[in-house]
C-alpha cells in the first residue's frame, strides 16, 4: 500500500503575501535591529567612561557613512516599532481588528513613521 502523504501544518507557503503580514514581520525585524541599537547605546555610554580616546573612536564610527546609515536606520526602526506598537496595543484592547481597519491603520502607521524619520533627519541635517 502506498504511503499516505498526510498534509503538514502550518502551510506558510499557501498564504499570499499581503500588507498586514508584511508589516507584522517588519515589526519583528525592526525590533531585532533596535536590540543592536541598544548595544550601540551601551557602547556609547561605556566609551565615555573609558575616556576621551574611546569616545572619539565611537564618535568617529557613528559619524562615518556606515555609522550614519545605521543611525538613520535605527531612528526609522524606532518610529516604526513605536507606531506599530501603539497599533498592537489598540488590538490588545480589542479595537481596530476588522480587516479594512487593520489595513488602514497599517498604512497610516507606516506613513507616520516615515514622516517622523524624515522630519527628524531634516532637523539633524539643518542643525
Amino acid at each position, binding site marked *: 500500500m502506498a504511503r499516505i502523504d498526510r498534509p503538514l501544518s502550518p502551510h506558510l507557503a499557501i498564504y499570499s503575501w499581503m500588507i498586514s503580514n508584511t508589516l507584522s514581520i517588519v515589526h*519583528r525585524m525592526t525590533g531585532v535591529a533596535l536590540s543592536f541599537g*541598544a548595544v550601540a547605546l*551601551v557602547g556609547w555610554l561605556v566609551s565615555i567612561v573609558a575616556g576621551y580616546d574611546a569616545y572619539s573612536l565611537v564618535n568617529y564610527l557613528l559619524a562615518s557613512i556606515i555609522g550614519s546609515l545605521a543611525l538613520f536606520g535605527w531612528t526609522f526602526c524606532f518610529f516604526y516599532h513605536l507606531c506599530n506598537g501603539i497599533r498592537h496595543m489598540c488590538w490588545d484592547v480589542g479595537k481596530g481588528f476588522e480587516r479594512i481597519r487593520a489595513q488602514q491603520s497599517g498604512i497610516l502607521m507606516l506613513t507616520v513613521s516615515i514622516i517622523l524619520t524624515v522630519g527628524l533627519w531634516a532637523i539633524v541635517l539643518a542643525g
Partner: protein
Amino acid sequence: MSLQSPLGKALGQGSAHTGLDHWLAQRSTAIAIVPLGLWFIISMVSLQHGNYEIVSAWIAEPLNAILLILLVIALLYHSMIGLQVIVEDYVSGGLGYLTSIFLQFIHVLLAVAGIYSVIIISLGAGQ
C-alpha cells in the same frame, strides 16, 4: 490503540496558566520606552555638535542620569523579552533554551554596563 477517552486526552492540554506576567512586562516596558525614547532622541539631536566635556556634563545632570538609567533598564528588558519570543518561535529544543539563556546573559551584562557607566560619569563630573 489507547483506552484513554477523547475527553481525557484533551483535558490538561490547554493554557499553561503562566505567561501573563511576561505579556504585561512587554507592554509596560513598551509604554515606558515611548516617552524615554523620544526624550533620548530629541536630546541626542540637541547634543549633535557637543564634544566630550559637553556630553559628559549632560549625562551627569541628575535628571538626565536618572532618565538614562530608566531608559537602559526599560530598553534592555523589552529587548530581552522580545528576542526571547522570537527565539521561542524559530529555534526549537535545546538550542532554543541555550540561545534564550545566552541572550539573557548578554542583556543583563549590557544593562549593568550601561547603569554603571551613567553612575560613573555622574560621579566623575561632580568632583
